[in-house]
């Protein structure tokens, strides 16, 4: 009789203990940036599903940061701008996986040449103020010694900026990035500077998370890093195939634009020591990064 009771108790405990929660879903808040193509690729290939990681795509990085800010996502793709903004607003945010650095992907366009702008009394700058655009513009103004006082800053989303048309009676500066640059260039804006040539600024794209998520999902984040590495490798190995998978995340850009866009970034998922050393003062500490 005792054995029967013990068996019954055992099964009762087993039954009750079986109902533990599954591995909790993680969310990555991101936007349509060519540098985040490995995430889109991994999503389409099902690599993220296996890790129970979901993508939340947004129009801009600012929105992506907002999603992270209100706690709808545990991981967010950032440039150093969003990283600093979130950190300054009180988040214990940590960069954990390096993705790419902009190598021409962020740029300053204008309807005028640089000399006209240097001598202009008033310049209208179109940008997402709460984005890396601001850092790029500041670096550009500093480089060409253009005072901020003659600047009129117009804060717009890139989707709005994309529709701008050059106006001859205005000195217009547009800070944008791939793929929004394509349409702007087609509209007549010329590139004055880009991250390819701007040696004083480096735009780093990375996945950031908070300490709690890092602590509780260390293993999964390492697996995510491995997935990203694999995706970058596969993405480079068969660009046509990767294009077909990720194009809908990149506003359905053409294959040619896709290839061109890839040229405007450099993958830093496997960073050199030199790079790590350079970005460490920017808050990207090597010991925190998953390599």
């Amino acid at each position: 009789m005792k054995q029967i009771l013990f068996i019954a108790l055992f099964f009762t405990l087993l039954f009750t203990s079986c109902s533990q929660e599954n591995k909790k879903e993680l969310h990555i808040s991101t936007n349509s940036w060519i540098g985040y193509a490995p995430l889109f690729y991994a999503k389409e290939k099902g690599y993220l599903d296996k890790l129970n990681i979901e993508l939340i795509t947004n129009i801009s990085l600012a929105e992506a940061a907002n999603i992270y800010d209100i706690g709808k996502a545990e991981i967010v793709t950032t440039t150093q701008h969003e990283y600093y903004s979130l950190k300054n607003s009180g988040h214990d945010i940590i960069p954990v996986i390096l993705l790419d650095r902009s190598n021409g992907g962020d740029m300053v366009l204008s309807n005028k040449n640089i000399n006209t702008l240097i001598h202009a009394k008033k310049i209208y700058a179109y940008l997402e103020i709460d984005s890396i655009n601001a850092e790029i513009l500041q670096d550009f103004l500093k480089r060409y010694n253009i005072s901020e006082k003659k600047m009129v800053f117009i804060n717009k989303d890139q989707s709005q900026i994309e529709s701008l048309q050059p106006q001859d009676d205005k000195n217009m500066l547009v800070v944008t990035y791939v793929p929004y640059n394509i349409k702007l260039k087609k509209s007549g804006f010329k590139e004055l500077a880009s991250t390819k040539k701007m040696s004083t600024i480096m735009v780093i794209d990375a996945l950031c998370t908070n300490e709690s998520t890092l602590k509780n999902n260390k293993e999964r984040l390492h697996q995510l890093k491995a997935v990203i590495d694999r995706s970058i490798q596969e993405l480079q190995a068969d660009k046509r195939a990767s294009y077909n998978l990720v194009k809908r995340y990149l506003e359905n850009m053409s294959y040619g634009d896709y290839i061109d866009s890839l040229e405007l970034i450099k993958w830093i998922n496997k960073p050199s020591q030199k790079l790590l050393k350079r970005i460490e003062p920017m808050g990207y500490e090597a010991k925190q990064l998953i390599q």
Partner: protein
Amino acid sequence: MKNISIKLFTIIVMLMLLTSGGYLFYKFYADSKNVTESLLEENIQVNLLNMKYFLDKNLKENNIDQLVAYLDNRVHSNSIIDDIHILDNNKKLLYATDRDDYALHKGIQCLPISKIINSDIFQQECYSFSVKLFDDLTPYYYQTNIYLNRAYLDSLLKDKIIKYLTLFIVNFFILMVILWITINKLIVNPLEQLRQFAYYSTKVPKQFLIQELESIRYSLDLTFKRLKEEQKELFNLSTKDPLSGLYNRLSLVEKINWLISKSKRSDAQFALLFLDLDNFKNINDSRGHEFGDKVLQHVSQVLISSVRDNDIVSRLGGDEFVIVLPDIEDNDAILEVIHRIREALNIPVVFDNYKYHVTCSIGITIYPKDGRDVTELLKNSDIAMYKSKDLGKNNFHFFTERLNDEIQEKIKIQRVMVSALEEGNFKLFYQPKVDIVSNKIVGCEGLIRLIDPIVGLIPPDRFIHIAEENNFIIPLGEWIIEEGARQLKTWESTPLKDLKLSINVSGVQFKDSNLLSTLENAISTIDKNKFEIELTESVLMTDFDEKLEIIDKFKALGLRLSLDDFGTGYSSLSYLKKIPFDTLKIDKSFIDDLENTKDQSFVNMIVTIADELNLEVVAEGVENKKQLKYLKSMKCEQYQGYLCSRPLPANEFESLFLERECP
């Protein structure tokens, strides 16, 4: 292993169910709470996201007044949000929805909205997010605090707790009650009924719903029924006679003992009828045992139908039956029963086309007069029954003390005879046969005498008929033959060598298949012509043809034959015709009244017949000279009687022969 009751087991199971049920309900509640929490979080997140987006786009330094309407609306349209505070980068309150009492939330710590997922919304009072503003390209931050409507959230949680707790308790209580009642009704009670049934095997439980229990109930019922049948069969086997269905001896003894106890208390008397079928052995021998069994069954039915319901009818064995009639006040009731039995038996029965008349002899004893215990009553009724058989069968006889004395005497004589033969207490005495003309002893008759060392001489009329009844006459007869032959042999070398010796042979001895060989062996060394067999007419009266065959063989052996007690029977002359006798012995009854002319004529006639048939003639029982004179005048050849001598032992007889002549 220590066992537990089903009730205790049920309680344990119920406790386990309570535990697991409680856990399940807790999980259900927790899941439900989590879902609610998720929905609330979602709601808050979406609201805050919209608000943050709105503020990001619209909030400028010193334009808060333009946003008041929007913010108020957000709070009033959302039951989760109780209040919103917006603080500038110097922590100065720019906006509060509840502007009358904005200090209400003082001291409340606000959790960054990004941590909402890991927080317990039902414990949290405030979430915050920052709104980024720019001075040209330089950012600065305002803080927005969202205070939750605790009363609303608490009511949600409280409602859930009450709802789930009520649901759980009521459901569990109902379930437990149903379970308890069901187990009691369907398992515990049936098991208790089965236990009682198995223990007492009296009331058969009604059909059970549970198949396994029903199967046990059915099997038990079946087994008990079979056991009862077997018990009944065993009881019948032990108490009833299988052939007749009547009580057997064991049962009869038990019932009589019970009746004796009862009668002792009530001073009542009862009768015991011992009934034995007449000549039943002949039926078995001639028609077979199967036929005999049918007769016994028929008699059993007759007896059963002839007695009252409370009378006891039993078969002791063979053709012996006992009927006990309780509460008998007088002999009339007994005679009435006997009358009914005899009347019913009087109707012939036909089995296998063979008609058979059943008669029986009945011995009757009355308790307590004729016996105070079973053994005595049975013994005495048996005695009475034998007496009725002696009286000619198809009769009945009440037991009496005289009858008892007779039986006791018979038993005593039987015992004495058996030991006498073993111990040599039987003696052959010799009574001389005297030639009437020469007065010389010419022969003798060997007569058996029993001389018991304790009782003394026992005359033949006390034991011969008993020896004949129980066939003891056969070994005794053999001894007489051998002793007579031995004596003749002894006398061969003495002056008595010419004497003839006669011995008596009983009718019973003819049943002895060894009779002829015994005779042949005995006379093998003597002169056979001197050895004579005396046969009485009574011997010849039954089974004459069979006996004649044997008698012829006697003759063939060379023996002499003598017809004893001649004249007393009905067919004396016919015997003389059929049997080659050598001697006629005139019965003593004729000699006793020889002075009577009528008897003289008879004797004279017998002597004449013997003379005519060339037979020797011997007159028996001659006791005086007058009788001898008559006999002499009738030319009777020999006499035998006390005139010469009583029967004498061999040595005295020899002396008589040698020392003197008889008159």
